[in-house]
């Protein structure tokens, strides 16, 4: 089984539009959306959700008010500043409810779940509670099955959720005897991207011809090199700044990277997006043709990698 991962140093390069366009061209595949922070692929593929599953991330510290003596030991040992003295209640009295409230409080947004406070609390007032951090889904789309997810707001652990989505996509691909997984990767080069890179057949890096685009491309190529994943490049909207495109091509040549495709700026792309359909399913324009040509070259490249 092969896995094509589509990434971009940064969001907004048109990565998801390209994944959707490839999804409409490829046969016999499973799709995975690993952009768990802000999953968008479903907007273009109109999935019908078949199963909804809970995802538990790291635990969070919870303080039992009745047991806490207010000694402040936990505040000292928490290196993430997640525990603070509780603000005195305005007016000084809320005894109507019968509770004085806790003397210290945990800011769950800052808590990294290390558990050090539970070890150090002399009163045994702190416990770690599993934290529902998001959901992952298996859906059916007109272009094949899709595994996707949504991380809860302000949650960490997107790396773990990415790993979960990839595991499920593999399982589904094996079950369906699919030959290929196409993965819409997360943006950036941080923990979710690292989780999405390991063991993929080929990474297609989508970039755009801007100063920033080139800069981001370099960082993500380095990252892929770090994990020994073969890379090929797609320059999106290459004709918006032809001189920058040439610089990127020269850089790729120097680094020994192939260019899988150059997609022209084409108003059909925005139109496809607004109408929420994959470009290759609704347009015969210049961009759609370029994506089709790119798909052919990606197939050849993956075939070659398999032979090695």
């Amino acid at each position, binding site marked *: 089984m092969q896995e094509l991962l589509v990434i971009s140093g940064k969001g907004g390069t048109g990565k998801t539009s390209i994944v959707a366009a490839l999804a409409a061209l490829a046969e016999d595949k499973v799709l995975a959306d690993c952009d768990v922070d802000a999953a968008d692929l479903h907007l273009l593929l109109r999935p019908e959700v078949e199963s909804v599953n809970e995802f538990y991330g790291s635990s969070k510290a919870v303080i039992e008010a009745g047991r806490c003596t207010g000694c402040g030991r936990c505040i000292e040992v928490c290196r993430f500043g997640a525990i603070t003295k509780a603000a005195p209640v305005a007016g000084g009295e809320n005894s109507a409810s019968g509770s004085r409230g806790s003397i210290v409080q945990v800011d769950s947004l800052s808590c990294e779940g290390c*558990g050090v406070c539970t070890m150090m609390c002399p009163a045994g007032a702190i416990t770690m509670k599993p934290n529902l951090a998001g959901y992952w889904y298996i859906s059916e789309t007109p272009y094949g099955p899709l595994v996707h997810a949504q991380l809860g707001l302000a949650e960490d652990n997107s790396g773990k959720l990415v790993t979960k989505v990839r595991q499920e996509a593999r399982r589904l691909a094996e079950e369906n005897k699919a030959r290929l997984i196409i993965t819409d990767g997360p943006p950036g080069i941080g923990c979710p991207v690292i989780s999405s890179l390991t063991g993929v057949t080929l990474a297609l890096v989508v970039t755009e011809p801007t100063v920033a*685009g080139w800069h981001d491309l370099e960082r993500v190529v380095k990252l892929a090199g770090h994990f020994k994943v073969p890379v090929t490049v797609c320059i999106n909207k290459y004709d918006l700044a032809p001189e920058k495109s040439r610089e990127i091509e020269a850089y790729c040549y120097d680094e020994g990277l192939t260019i899988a495709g150059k997609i022209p700026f084409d108003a059909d792309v925005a139109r496809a997006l607004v109408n929420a359909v994959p470009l290759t399913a609704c347009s015969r324009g210049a961009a759609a043709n370029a994506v089709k040509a790119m798909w052919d070259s990606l197939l050849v490249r993956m075939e070659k990698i398999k032979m090695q």
Partner: protein
Amino acid sequence: MLVTVASGKGGTGKTTIVTNLALALARKMPVQVLDCDVEEPNAHLFLEPVFQEEEEVTLPVPEVDNTKCNGCGKCSEVCAFHALAVAGGKVITFPEMCHGCGGCAIACPTGAISEKPHRIGIVARGQAGRIDFAHGKIDVGVPLAPPVIRAVKRLARKEGLTLIDAPPGTSCPVVAAVKDSDFCLLVTEPTPFGLNDLKLAVGMVREVGVPFAVVINRSTLGDLRVERYCRQERIPILLKIPFDKRYAATYARGKCLVEEYPDWVPPFIGLWQEIERLVSQRARATGN
């Protein structure tokens, strides 16, 4: 005042807003730009600061003294991040997984664990004309952005305006950037993606509890659903920047709108005045 510019997703024009707002205001008041998009800091490509200082950001990771260690395995048991393993009576550490919480050193009964700093990135600061500039950058392959973001934010000044370029998304790195801000600007575009990501970003800022408003970039390249959503949710839209091939080319060359099209200076100053007004309105409402 601390103003963070964020977006549900990258590529919506956060850096464009930060750099243009900074340039437009720098003549009138002290402005500081902190690029907290530590995975891919880009603001320096536009503001071209001269960097004067660079500092390493480190986390304290465990170092095991093998002469004291008895291989009991307590350290790996308490580590919530699987950054330690005991194999064949010996401790193996994985510094790239370590959050530097200090739990293992506390748990070790023999006092075999001490801590040494492990580099995860850098913070660089300098001057871009009148603008005081700093950014953070995580080392390639390091999965932990928040400590580097916090290191950049420690440089925030009290006087004037400090603008933070936040990382994209809605998870822990963004929260680290948005926390403690006086105001948050959410940049979006008028497409189904833009709307989807905006809704997530709005949920995130509400969770963090910071007042916010929206800027629509490439406002002519899409539909009206984003505006309709903002109206329903009573979220002010403070600025719209239309799509224009000339602007795209300006950006591609690493130049700023207000430099090449001075007509854009007043709208950015107006954007700032609106932010000030909304912040003081909120301060009055909450009695601060």
